[in-house]
């Protein structure tokens, strides 16, 4: 949600490694994302793709290595601070707040506007000239006392949320319970909810999982669309090769926690190692 000055590499992963017990789930992953790029992260089941997402978003702490976001080292920061800094994500197995309405789901994403103090402090520490020392605002009390300040904020949030829902074509469902949505719209809602935190980098975890070719095609256009509209940088995990080849500008291939290939979609398609890794996993090719 915080505007960050333009620097070339949005995300840089340096020697990212994580071990669970004796198992090395991800082994020195090196990668980068440039501003506005759409990069794919593919690999067979259990290759460690989601683990990389979890390390970027702070759910797991890497054993070694660093996550650099806009030149700032965010390794080991708390997940919510990382979200405030501008990284949002979706989940492989959709994790909507199913007892809340569609609109409320998006509004939850916008709650971070009120509570981003820690992130602004981190930014100030990172670059004092660019980011002035933040002042803490007692939003909590304002929310209880319903001060005009807070009511104005609430109104802003609501109109922004409705705008987002319009952008993902869900505005007619706004007051419906999130669990009442069909599968496809649920995926879209999850993306809208992530966008509500005003990210500059969006991580999509298997957005096309469980969709038919028709829906997949629509999703492809949808992602292309929001990337332009919200000037996002996107990193996405996907199994569906056709989908990845159709949309990504660059691809990392992961197997057993290691990068086995990296390059343009065309190069990846003909890469021997990649074909080997996917052999026996043919359904996905």
């Amino acid at each position, binding site marked *: 949600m915080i505007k960050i000055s333009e620097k070339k590499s949005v995300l840089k992963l340096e020697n990212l490694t994580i071990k*669970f*017990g004796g198992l090395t789930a991800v082994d020195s992953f090196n990668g980068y994302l440039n501003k506005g790029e759409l990069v794919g992260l593919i690999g067979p089941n259990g290759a460690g793709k*989601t683990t990389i997402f979890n390390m970027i978003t702070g*759910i*797991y702490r890497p054993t070694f290595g660093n996550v650099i976001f806009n030149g700032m080292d965010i390794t080991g920061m708390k997940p919510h601070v990382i979200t405030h800094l501008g990284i949002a994500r979706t989940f492989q197995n959709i994790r909507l707040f199913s007892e809340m309405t569609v609109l409320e789901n998006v509004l939850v994403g916008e709650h971070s506007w009120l509570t981003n103090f820690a992130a602004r402090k981190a930014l100030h520490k990172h670059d004092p000239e660019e980011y002035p020392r933040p002042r803490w605002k007692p939003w909590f009390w304002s929310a209880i006392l319903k001060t005009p300040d807070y009511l104005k904020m609430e109104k802003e949030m609501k109109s922004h949320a409705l705008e987002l829902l319009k952008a993902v074509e869900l505005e007619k469902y706004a007051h419906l319970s999130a669990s009442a949505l069909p599968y496809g719209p649920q995926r879209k809602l999850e993306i809208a909810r992530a966008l509500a935190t005003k990210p500059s980098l969006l991580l999509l975890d298997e957005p096309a999982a469980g969709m038919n070719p028709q829906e997949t095609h629509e999703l492809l256009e949808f992602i292309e669309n929001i990337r332009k509209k919200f000037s996002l940088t996107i990193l996405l995990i996907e199994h569906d090769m056709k989908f990845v080849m159709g949309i990504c500008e660059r691809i990392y291939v992961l197997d057993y926690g290691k990068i086995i290939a990296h390059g343009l979609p065309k190069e990846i398609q003909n890469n021997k190692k990649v074909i080997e890794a996917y052999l026996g996993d043919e359904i996905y090719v």
Partner: protein
Amino acid sequence: MSASNLIQDLINGILLGGLYALIAVGYTMVYGILRLINFAHGDILMMGVYFAFYFISAFTMPWWLGFIVGIVGAGALGFMVERVAYRPLRNAPRISSLITAIGMSFFLESLAVVVFGGIPKSFNLYPKFFSRILIIGHTRIQVLTFFILGVTLLLMLALVWLLYKTKIGIAMRAISVDIPTTSLMGANVDNIISLTFIIGSMLAATSGIMWAMRYPQVQPYMGFVPGLKAFIAAVIGGIGSVPGALVGGFLLGMVEILIVGLFPNLAGYRDAFAYVILIVLLMFRPSGIFKVYSEQKV
């Protein structure tokens, strides 16, 4: 503090610890399988003691037969509690079964008040032989102490044999790791869970009866605090681990007796030690002494 006092305290500590350990086993086995803190466990214990009490005093049974009937009765009660209150909620949110367990605990306590009366009853239904006192060196030990220690040890050995050497025990341990897979392997999950409740309840009732012999009275709320402390013992040992529960029980009993022995003016806070230990442990090493590996998947 003199040496004989110390020995006396050590023996008392072991004794109390053994009683905690027997109760803790039921907690840890149920938690290991269902991830449920069975708050009613201590109250099943209390009911077992009442059963024994009434069978001996009302039906003039010999004391040992009355004890056995009480223990078996507690086992049956444990079976019923699981069947009626916990099984229907097995697929509900975990907090629901926890709330139900608390309700069950209060249900059994008030049932005891209604049926047996709320006034404590003296529990001296065992032969006079047990209250004889042996003097070894400067230490005075009741024969009852040896009896309790013997029974505790015997039951623990039997339990370890059951869990590690028999087919049913292996099934129990397997189920605590992974219910779906175990049921795929052909084990009847429902029966094994029932059996876990029965064994846990019987062990607890045994402990409860010996508790009532030692602090000779029985009352409707007698199970709650020992139950809670036994749960803490299970956490100390690493919840889900049976050897852990045994070690945790002994440690807790020892600590309680020794702290009061060393600092007599803390006696009023005795019940708080266990809670403090629990909180400190949960903060710094929630997995207990015997770590049971688990990881949340995101």
